[in-house]
């Protein structure tokens, strides 16, 4: 994708083409060398995000969602030299308010974590240290970025735990992670991530392990905190329902690449990529009685070592044959189909609209 289309993503919200987006990822590649070959987890991904907005990144396992978020947070192990333990090979650019992060030292990026950017992980039990109390872990992060004494920090931690809905925060602050239930742990981790009011919050499957009632509480919490601090939020999930609920913009990923990008309204009401159609058709609907069988996507997600040539989705795509072999040979660019709505697909706009209107939409 060219930088101009990337700017498109952001400018439609401002009308000021020259303004720098808050977070900008340009042609990000994250590859892992393994004995079996090079795993291309993220392969040429670009997107942009502004403050006060939520970007939902959707995709199935192995599509590169989490690898992308770890790259932004600077959490991939980089190979120290050719001989040592292989780590991730990263290329591309990540800008946080104009500050390029991939070229910076790990120490520099560590200084940004907590205050400038923070992350909520999927599994709170492994993301917290079992040897320290929940309060200790919140206080630690807060005191690194704020010159306050322990007493003030502790009060802040209690405040936060109360805010995220932990009952009796004054005593719970001294509890250990194992003494919390799954939902409480997730809330405690959110409190930890929010302890320094981060400008960028990355939530990687924040509610996947939780029951729906707890999930609803957590989503509300993220929404409230975002409006309060005007943070930029990246929400990574495989659940299109969660995305429809929370995201302003949506990026659909497949095999480490962007397939479609647009506003939530565009993605759900005028989806343009056959993979997005497949995801929508695969979901049983909660909100209406069933009429049709699910429109499952045939086949399985590809290996990231041997990603299919051309469009990575072509072996599973029901419409690839219409492109006269181009799907197998040429990798489609992420191009605009309407302002702010980008799609990487070889189908022509006329074909796409006809298929959506006559074959897909009536069956959803």
């Amino acid at each position: 994708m060219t930088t101009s289309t990337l700017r498109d993503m952001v400018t439609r919200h401002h009308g000021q083409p020259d303004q720098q987006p808050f977070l900008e990822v340009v042609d990000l590649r994250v590859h892992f060398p393994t004995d079996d070959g090079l795993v291309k987890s993220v392969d040429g991904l670009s997107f942009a995000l502004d403050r006060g907005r939520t970007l939902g990144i959707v995709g199935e396992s192995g599509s590169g969602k989490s690898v992308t978020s770890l790259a932004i947070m600077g959490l991939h192990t980089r190979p120290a030299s050719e001989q040592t333990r292989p780590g991730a090979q990263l290329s591309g650019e990540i800008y946080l308010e104009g500050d390029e992060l991939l070229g910076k030292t790990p120490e520099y990026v560590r200084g940004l974590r907590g205050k400038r950017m923070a992350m909520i992980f999927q599994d709170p039990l492994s993301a917290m240290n079992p040897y320290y109390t929940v309060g200790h872990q919140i206080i630690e992060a807060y005191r690194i970025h704020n010159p306050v004494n322990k007493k003030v920090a502790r009060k802040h931690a209690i405040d936060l735990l109360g805010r995220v809905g932990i009952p009796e925060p004054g005593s719970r602050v001294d509890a250990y992670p194992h003494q919390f239930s799954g939902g409480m742990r997730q809330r405690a981790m959110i409190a930890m991530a929010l302890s320094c009011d981060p400008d960028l919050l990355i939530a990687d499957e924040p509610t996947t392990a939780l029951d729906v009632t707890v999930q609803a509480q957590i989503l509300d919490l993220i929404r409230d905190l975002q409006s309060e601090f005007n943070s930029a939020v990246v929400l990574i999930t495989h659940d299109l329902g969660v995305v429809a609920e929370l995201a302003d913009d949506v990026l659909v990923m497949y095999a480490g690449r962007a397939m479609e990008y647009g506003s939530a309204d565009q993605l759900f009401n005028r989806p343009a990529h056959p993979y997005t159609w497949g995801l929508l058709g695969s979901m049983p609907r909660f909100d209406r009685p069933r009429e049709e069988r699910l429109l499952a996507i045939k086949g399985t997600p590809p290996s990231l070592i041997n990603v299919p040539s051309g469009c990575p989705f072509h072996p599973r795509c029901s419409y690839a044959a219409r492109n006269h072999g181009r799907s197998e040979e040429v990798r489609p660019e992420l191009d605009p189909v309407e302002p702010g709505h980008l799609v990487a697909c070889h189908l022509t706009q006329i074909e796409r609209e006809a298929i959506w209107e006559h074959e897909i939409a009536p069956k959803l």
Partner: protein
Amino acid sequence: MSAPAQRPAAADAEQDSNLIIVEDLIKHFPIRAGLLRRQVGAVQAVDGVNFAVKKRETFSIVGESGCGKSTTARLLTRLLEATAGKITFEGRDITHLKDAQLRPLRRDMQMIFQDPYSSLNPRHTVGKIVGAPFRIQGVSPPGGVKKAVQDLLAAVGLNPEHYNRYPHEFSGGQRQRIGIARTLALRPRLIVADEPVSALDVSIQAQVLNLLEDLQEEFDLTYVIIAHDLSVVRYVSDRVAVMYLGKIVELADAEALYSSPMHPYTVALMSAVPVPDTRRRQQRERILLSGDVPSPIKPPPACRFHTRCWKAQEICRTKEPPLVELVPRHQVACHFPENYPPNEAADLR
């Protein structure tokens, strides 16, 4: 009135069409402590559950983690033995059968597990895994085990040539298909599936749901499906039971349950489900339940939901509401049900 005279006959017919009947089922896991390992309490995982599953129907049990739905599944298939109550399968009381007596039963009753990674032996080939039921039960299918296994693989959408491969060579969705092929081997009558698709990606989940539906048709199966995903449950089920802290709080036909839920817990649960429709984002009214599910070691007295219910009154704390059929085919355990009386009944008056 002629109705009472007809009732026994009708009840008999109903008995006949029921494949499995569960009455007052209770499972308490003892908690032991101290030097003498004396019992100091019990996890009341399942506490007085009643339902019947008809032949060829899909009966689902939904609820949040810890509500006792998986324990119920394991009691049905006799992987656990009930503390009290009665399970009748095809007219036979199977609640306390011994291992040797259970073996023939296992032919008729099979289970699909949640995790396709831990439920297949990594050292066995697909042929050995899917053929195991034949060996264990001493069944020799016509044409030999190998052919039977290959037919089964084809039936679940796998390549019969994969007979000699190992589980690690397959993706999650394919492994789940292997597990399903194994459950089908002995042509069971009942399949209990505990979260059959929750470990799978959306696109694969749809494939497996479609497969389960085709197999039901082809093999005349009855399903009991345990799930927490209310969208999946609406899609697959004929009837649905909602569990909360070891008890069924509501049981109804799927469409009735989703269009007019009556128990406040069901209403809250449904209001929390995120819907993939941006146009509804504004209009939705969500009922947020406060706090967590109470501990099943010391569940709240009377109505177990009263600690989190916005409609709770004094009676909810003192008197347990029985599960009663308020509307035909719609059972609810609540003193103050929602959507009741139903609108059409009001019109009749």
